[in-house]
């Protein structure tokens, strides 16, 4: 059938929205300004809903949260210069966590490029190292193909952010628009690789001969949509599963083969299991320094199989014995029929013994000291919200690690968090994106008092968009994770970590958000219930123990099995004196 738009003369701005719409996008997150005004003017003809943010960094995190919650490409829009540079943090965040977003920026007129014109920044130059790919568009007739390529590059292979910088004249001038003719032309782009037959055989050989294998489950499982395949694989082969931070949700927490999170703040037994393993099966993870600890002593007796879509990740940090480069789901489909069922109860019993007294050290089992701990809040939040379709979006720091430890995620895309870049200020805007993508989900922001203040301007966006987002501030009056490092490694010199905070409940009320403050454990459940029942956004300011510490901890550069553990008795802290 002939495309009805073919041959019609249209402005670059209208082509932009038409193409974005055809890519399946219904919502974009943006902030207008001079160089992007033609595009904003043309938005009135589009069915796309525009969410007005309060800062362009927020727009990128929203697009990111939208992408992670739904698996679809998220779109952020900004003007040239400061609008575009404000996006850099969000783009870098999406880059390190392989999140598919497309950022559209306005640029000064093509004749003015290079003249230091008002609000001119070379944003393709600035974002070159933090995008999967980027474009500068200077003619209306390049808009359609560029947008199609941008979406294709963002979501295919290992996903990532793509920025499209469009000059003002390219938005204003008209040309013929023909969607069909504007097919992507990417002769050098090869996102679909698959392993060789002999690599499969080598992998199966290692799997069948292993006595102490462990699956390391990463974000790639969720991106590839291989949750069922991983489960089938683990169950058939009888292999336990350890999760990376971004792998949480890729394998059900309640599954008997689930060990929990690995790495710097992973469960002690998980790290010990990895160190004692004779085979690591890395599924869509990249051996980040936060999960390996010291590479020289990492899993010294283990052979390694690495299933990974990005060939540049192979042998980057950890030398592997068998790389299987390809889409995880497809690779597991190939492997599964050949995987033999093997009884590994001896190994699983051994792992059970590794758990030792870990449970006793768990703060949940320590006598109630009357103090409110973040772990209580997270654990109670989990108990209250576990049955519904809940998405928790965290920020970065201690509360993030406690969330990972105490909230038990059963489903993929139920935890959204900035892992690779560790971007404070991510949670609130990312949660907005998640809620827009999945309005039926119950969205909770779990955020520290530090990170919350980095992007709290987006509270206004929540209210303006009438979004039911619940916010749990884990308020300890410190930049807690930095304070923890100072406690351990800088002789408790708390330089620049204590925070003098505003009254967050009053702040929430000022935005028109129902807000409360909780100081005792007994108030946690009632406050969560009240928040869930309220028809509108709610902010809860949980004032928790100030100098609490995330345990266990593998110090930077230490071996994975050398963990600092929670003392059996809670140490007296400043707040007790």
């Amino acid at each position: 059938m002939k495309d009805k738009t073919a041959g019609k003369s249209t402005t670059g701005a209208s082509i932009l929205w038409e193409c974005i719409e055809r890519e399946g996008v219904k919502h974009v997150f943006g902030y207008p300004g001079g160089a992007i005004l033609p595009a904003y003017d043309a938005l009135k003809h589009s069915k796309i809903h525009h969410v007005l943010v309060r800062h362009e960094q927020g727009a990128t995190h929203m697009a990111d949260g939208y992408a992670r919650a739904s698996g679809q490409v998220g779109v952020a829009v900004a003007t040239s210069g400061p609008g575009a540079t404000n996006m850099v943090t969000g783009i870098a965040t999406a880059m390190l966590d392989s999140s598919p977003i497309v950022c559209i920026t306005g640029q000064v007129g093509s004749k003015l490029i290079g003249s230091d014109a008002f609000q001119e920044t070379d944003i393709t130059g600035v974002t070159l190292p933090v995008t999967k790919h980027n474009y500068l568009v200077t003619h209306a007739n390049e808009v359609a193909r560029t947008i199609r390529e941008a979406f294709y590059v963002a979501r295919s292979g290992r996903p990532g952010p793509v920025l499209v910088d469009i000059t003002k004249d390219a938005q204003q001038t008209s040309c013929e628009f023909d969607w069909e003719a504007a097919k992507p032309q990417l002769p050098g782009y090869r996102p679909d690789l698959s392993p060789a037959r002999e690599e499969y055989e080598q992998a199966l050989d290692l799997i069948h001969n292993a006595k102490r294998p462990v699956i390391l489950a990463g974000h790639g499982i969720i991106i590839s949509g291989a949750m069922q395949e991983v489960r089938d694989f683990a169950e058939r082969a009888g292999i336990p599963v350890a999760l990376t931070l971004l792998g949480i949700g890729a394998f059900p927490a309640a599954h008997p083969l689930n060990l929990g999170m690995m790495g710097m703040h992973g469960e002690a037994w998980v790290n010990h299991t990895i160190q004692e393993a004779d085979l690591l099966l890395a599924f869509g993870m990249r051996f980040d320094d936060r999960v390996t600890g010291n590479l020289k002593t990492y899993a010294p007796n283990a052979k390694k199989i690495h299933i990974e879509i990005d060939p540049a990740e192979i042998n980057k940090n950890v030398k592997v014995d068998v790389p299987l480069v390809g889409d995880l789901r497809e690779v597991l489909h190939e492997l599964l029929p050949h995987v033999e069922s093997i009884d590994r109860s001896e190994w699983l019993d051994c792992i059970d013994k590794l758990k030792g007294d870990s449970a006793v050290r768990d703060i949940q089992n320590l006598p109630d000291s009357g103090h409110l701990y973040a772990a209580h809040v997270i654990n109670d939040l989990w108990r209250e919200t576990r049955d519904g379709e809940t998405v928790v979006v965290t920020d970065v720091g201690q509360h993030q690690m406690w969330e990972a430890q105490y909230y038990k995620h059963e489903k993929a895309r139920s935890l959204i968090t900035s892992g690779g870049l560790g971007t404070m200020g991510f949670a609130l805007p990312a949660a907005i994106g998640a809620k827009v993508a999945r309005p039926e989900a119950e969205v909770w922001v779990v955020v520290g008092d530090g990170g919350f203040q980095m992007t709290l301007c987006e509270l206004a966006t929540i209210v303006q968009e009438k979004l039911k987002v619940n916010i749990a501030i884990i308020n300890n009056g410190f930049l807690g994770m930095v304070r923890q490092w100072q406690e351990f490694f800088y002789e408790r010199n708390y330089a620049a970590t204590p925070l003098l905070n505003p009254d967050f409940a009053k702040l929430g009320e000022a935005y028109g958000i129902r807000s409360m403050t909780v100081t005792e454990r007994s108030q946690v459940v009632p406050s969560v219930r009240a928040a869930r029942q309220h028809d509108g956004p709610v902010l809860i300011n949980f004032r928790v123990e100030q100098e609490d510490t995330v345990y266990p901890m593998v110090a930077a550069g230490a071996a994975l099995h050398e963990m600092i553990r929670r003392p059996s008795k809670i140490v007296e802290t400043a707040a007790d004196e």
Partner: protein
Amino acid sequence: MLNTYVVYVENKPGVLTRVASLFRRRAFNIDSLTVGRTEKPEVSRMTITVDADRDQARRIEANLYKLVNVLLVENITQEPSIVRDLAMIKVAATHEARSHVLELASVFRARVVDVAPESLTIEITGAEDKIDGLLEVLRPYGVMEMVRTGIVAMRRGKASTTALAAGNGNEDAAEEDVSQSV
């Protein structure tokens, strides 16, 4: 060890920056990089030499392929290939030294491309060590100015571009031929 890559890229603005930026941000140290046109107007060709061990060399190749505009990467370090550098060397050549310099140039099969009262400019093409050799014997006379292009390289026999034309790195399309050293 020094690795030599032949890299085909789309002939588009900014592609050189993307390649150079990749080496910088992954902390791979470029020894030499040249870029120029090819037999196809839409394709540019780079010759890049980098000091890297085997694992690094493989990762450099994988990272180059991650650049959307990169069409084909060949590590020709271990392949029989022709490697050439071009230098222009301006040597101080007064009356008495002139004949010696001319003699040295002819031994190295270099050409004199400019003669001035106080200097001679010599053009030499060859492998890097040949140029280094000429430079060494000219130094005592006084090298006033020098420019080198950096190396360009081409595999002997089999044409890389055959694989390129076949599209998407389909290497079977290129027949393995045999060629002799010249």
